[in-house]
């Protein structure tokens, strides 16, 4: 049984871990930008510091964890093995980290060369990953909504990166493009087509598995990724032909689709069979609630554009969807993945002779729960700061910095305990 339990092709722990440990540092950097720049940063969604912080979170934190986790998860959820996962992980991690830092510095310092260079570096890193992932998925039939969602999310990622590259190079070279319209579309593909569809594809597996809920019904599960990508394509065509009405209808429909998925998730969570709510459950519930409110704000402002001009509206909905929704979901996911991977690798290392310690000795629920609460406080403070930046921007930045540093500390602590246990297993195994 022990031999059967070991995934012989599972990438080494270092492959995903480098992404997971780097990501909180980018979130910390975004928080420190807010502390340093202060209230001016939240004056509108277009301030250079806010654009920098947004990309530190979306690229440096979200993309970093999502791609790092995919390298690990592809064999488990799709039966697709990346060729040379450690090599892919090394290059991707380097490209994402350097590209994300350059992009954010370019925004912050107004250095167009850095902006363009960062975008090209990110495009190359993500492009390399996409080639490896598409090769792994070639020939894998879409036998489940998860696999279909996974494939469509990669198309969403390609769209988001291509649009991001065009925007960054347009800024760097002074090209004449409709910046506002393309930025909205870029955000739509990045958050909806890539992150949203990937999140749904993963949720189909992990929500029932970790929270012991009923499964997602088949029909909406097959439909959600297709509808979201279809609506994004409609929005893109609307931009190309200059039809504002069609673009707005597609955006509202995409928001409503997202709300329906979030509401379905809440309903399944309410039917869970796990009696005690753990840190991940709390985190995901918070994520779903924030996403619903954020999507309602987005769709309302799309129907009544005057709302988007209300000071704080656009930044607040960004905080809810990105920090409250995606980051909370990712934090909850990290708290399942990291202790499980540590346990799995220790189990394999022990080879059946030495039992791995239980997962709660790698990271206890209390340790995770305290950090999750710090994150909730930070999201609340950031949301409030959008409306009252004058006296809340810097405290919100400090609060977010504490939550990010705490996440790093927790993940580093889990890794250090893993190493200690690994050393204690290897000593008796290697001694004569």
């Amino acid at each position: 049984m022990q031999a059967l339990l070991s995934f012989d092709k599972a990438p080494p722990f270092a492959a995903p871990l480098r992404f997971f440990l780097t990501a909180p540092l980018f979130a910390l950097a975004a928080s420190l930008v807010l502390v340093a720049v202060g209230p001016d940063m939240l004056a509108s969604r277009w301030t250079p510091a806010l654009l920098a912080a947004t990309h530190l979170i979306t690229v440096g934190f979200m993309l970093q964890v999502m791609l790092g986790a995919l390298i690990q998860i592809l064999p488990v959820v799709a039966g697709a093995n990346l060729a040379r996962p450690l090599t892919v992980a090394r290059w991707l991690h380097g490209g994402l980290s350097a590209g994300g830092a350059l992009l954010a510095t370019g925004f912050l310092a107004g250095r167009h060369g850095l902006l363009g260079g960062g975008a090209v570096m990110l495009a190359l890193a993500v492009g390399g990953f996409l080639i490896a992932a598409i090769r792994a998925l070639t020939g894998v039939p879409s036998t489940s909504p998860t696999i279909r969602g996974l494939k469509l999310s990669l198309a969403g990622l390609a769209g988001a990166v291509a649009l991001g590259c065009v925007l960054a190079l347009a800024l760097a070279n002074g090209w004449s493009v409709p910046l506002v319209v393309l930025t909205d579309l870029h955000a739509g593909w990045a958050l909806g087509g890539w992150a949203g569809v990937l999140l749904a594809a993963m949720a189909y597996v992990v929500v029932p598995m970790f929270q012991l809920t009923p499964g997602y019904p088949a029909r909406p599960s097959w439909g959600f990724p297709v509808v979201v990508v279809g609506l994004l394509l409609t929005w893109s065509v609307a931009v190309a032909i200059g039809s504002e009405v069609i673009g707005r209808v597609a955006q509202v429909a995409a928001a409503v689709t997202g709300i329906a998925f979030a509401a379905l998730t809440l309903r399944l969570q309410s039917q869970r069979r796990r009696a005690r709510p753990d840190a991940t459950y709390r985190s995901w519930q918070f994520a779903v609630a924030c996403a619903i409110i954020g999507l309602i704000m987005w769709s309302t402002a799309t129907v009544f554009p005057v709302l988007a001009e209300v000071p704080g509206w656009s930044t607040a909905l960004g905080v809810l969807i990105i920090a409250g929704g995606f980051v909370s979901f990712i934090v909850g996911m990290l708290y399942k993945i990291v202790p499980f991977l540590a346990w799995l690798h220790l189990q394999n290392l022990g080879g059946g002779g030495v039992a791995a310690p239980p997962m709660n000795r790698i990271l206890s629920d209390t340790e995770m729960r305290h950090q999750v609460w710090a994150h909730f406080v930070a999201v609340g403070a950031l949301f409030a700061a959008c409306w009252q930046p004058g006296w809340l921007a810097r405290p919100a930045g400090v609060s977010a910095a504490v939550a990010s540093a705490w996440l790093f500390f927790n993940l580093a602590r889990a890794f250090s305990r893993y190493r200690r246990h690994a050393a204690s297993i290897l000593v008796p195994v290697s001694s004569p």
Partner: protein
Amino acid sequence: MSHPKTPHVVDARYMEPPEPFVRTMEMLDTLKPGERMLLILFREPHPLYKVLRQNGYAYESELRPDGTFEILIGR
């Protein structure tokens, strides 16, 4: 638990990993030649599929409207 497809069933829908895997391997050990077993889950178990292929088992998976995967396993 029995099922129209086979009397040998592991309903793992509300089990945490790795219990579905362990229970499936245990039941496979008890099957007589020609018998098949049914694993019921809310996901497709790709790591299990791999182990089944390596050990000479065949499987068919079917997604039900309620989101349940029924996986029929035999030699």
